[in-house]
């Protein structure tokens, strides 16, 4: 593993995309940055522009309006960029499954690297998921 990948794993900048979530997942994401969890310890930051992102954090059930926009956002992100699906909605459409307006689960639309289930997932679960992803890239179990 070269230096740049090593640096990438220790400085993940996250861009938060909400594709029609009920806002609970988004609040839990913000919780990760509070003093109790403090993800900045590990170099993880929330950024305002998708051009700065290393990871897209996607929440919510994809609806017909948000899918094309989300694809655009993914295309705008500089690669390498991982996609993280947060919450049951993004994973499987959850209770909105039979809604007229909801299309496919996220992994049929974008290549998802990490699934974090829960409704909403606790901040611990998100941190745990990111640690697993980092370990996987590092190549140890």
């Amino acid at each position: 593993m070269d230096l740049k990948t090593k640096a990438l794993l220790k400085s993940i900048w996250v861009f938060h995309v909400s594709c029609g979530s009920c806002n609970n997942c988004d609040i839990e994401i913000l919780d990760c940055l509070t003093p109790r969890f403090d993800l900045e310890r590990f170099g993880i930051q929330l950024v305002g522009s998708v051009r700065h992102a290393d990871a897209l954090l996607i929440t919510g059930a994809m609806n017909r309006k948000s899918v094309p926009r989300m694809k655009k956002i993914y295309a705008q992100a500089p690669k390498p960029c991982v996609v993280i699906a947060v919450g049951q909605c993004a994973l499987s459409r959850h209770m909105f499954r039979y809604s007229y307006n909801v299309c496919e689960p996220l992994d049929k639309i974008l290549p998802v690297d990490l699934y974090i289930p829960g409704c909403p997932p606790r901040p611990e679960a998100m941190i745990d998921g990111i640690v697993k992803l980092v370990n996987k890239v590092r190549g140890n179990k």
Partner: protein
Amino acid sequence: MKALFYYLIFPGFLFSAVAGLLSSWVERKVTARIQWRVGPPWYQNFLDLIKLSGKETIIPKQARATFLLAPYLGLFSLVLAATILGLALFTPQQSFTGDLIVVVYLLVIPAICAIIGASSSRNPLASVGAAREMKLVLGYELPFVLSIATVIVKTHGGIRLGDILAFQMNFNSLFFSFSGALAFIAALLCCQAKLGLAPFEVAEAEQEIMAGTVIEYSGSALAAFKLTKAILLYTMPVLLILFFLGKDISPIFSLAKYIIILVVFILIKNTNPRLRIDQAVRFFWGPVTAIAGLALILALLGL
């Protein structure tokens, strides 16, 4: 050859980059401690830069050629300013006549480059950021130049950094006179705005206009902007030390003064909400210009 060494290694690019990145770590760490968090490790900013240089640099389809030129031009001129200031601090005899004016000019270029880069990216939010940055520059340049004029008047026309330092070594730091103290306060606030720290971070308001001027930048161009910011964070306290606190510039004292000024910047940043752009301009053209003007008048009266 020697000039190249000064420019690239010490006290130019390499030294000021390392000092600047460490200073911005101090900034992040102190901010984290104020918010009761732990904060990042000391090498975090270095990692950020290495990571950014490894990422893809996206150039928007409609961007102009200046899009990629601007960040490097800003970095280049800022390093030049940092070299001149560093040389004046470490070897005061080396400075040349008029370097004060050169530094004042060079320090505006990073802001201008941010404006040029933002407007050539053709992003509407970036153009909002550019417009705000431009107004902010117009706002803080007047009191900044006035307070520097105070320094020149106090040191009997010293437009050489070495002369200013020599004057302060012979008599006393300018900070310990009425006019000097007032000019110091005005200059400190202007530097806060030059650094783009809260309450004057209107041009890069992360929550409103999503990083504003740098919104379209990614990869190594963004790294150049981040590095410019970091070096600016090292340059500004050095500038203030040279102008106002130059009585004793032995390494230990310089470092102590440097850290105190840096922490003052950080405390102002963390205890103030962001101003709107009109409030910021009014603030600089009202109270701050009044303070700086008063300092100049007092200096002309010899106080």
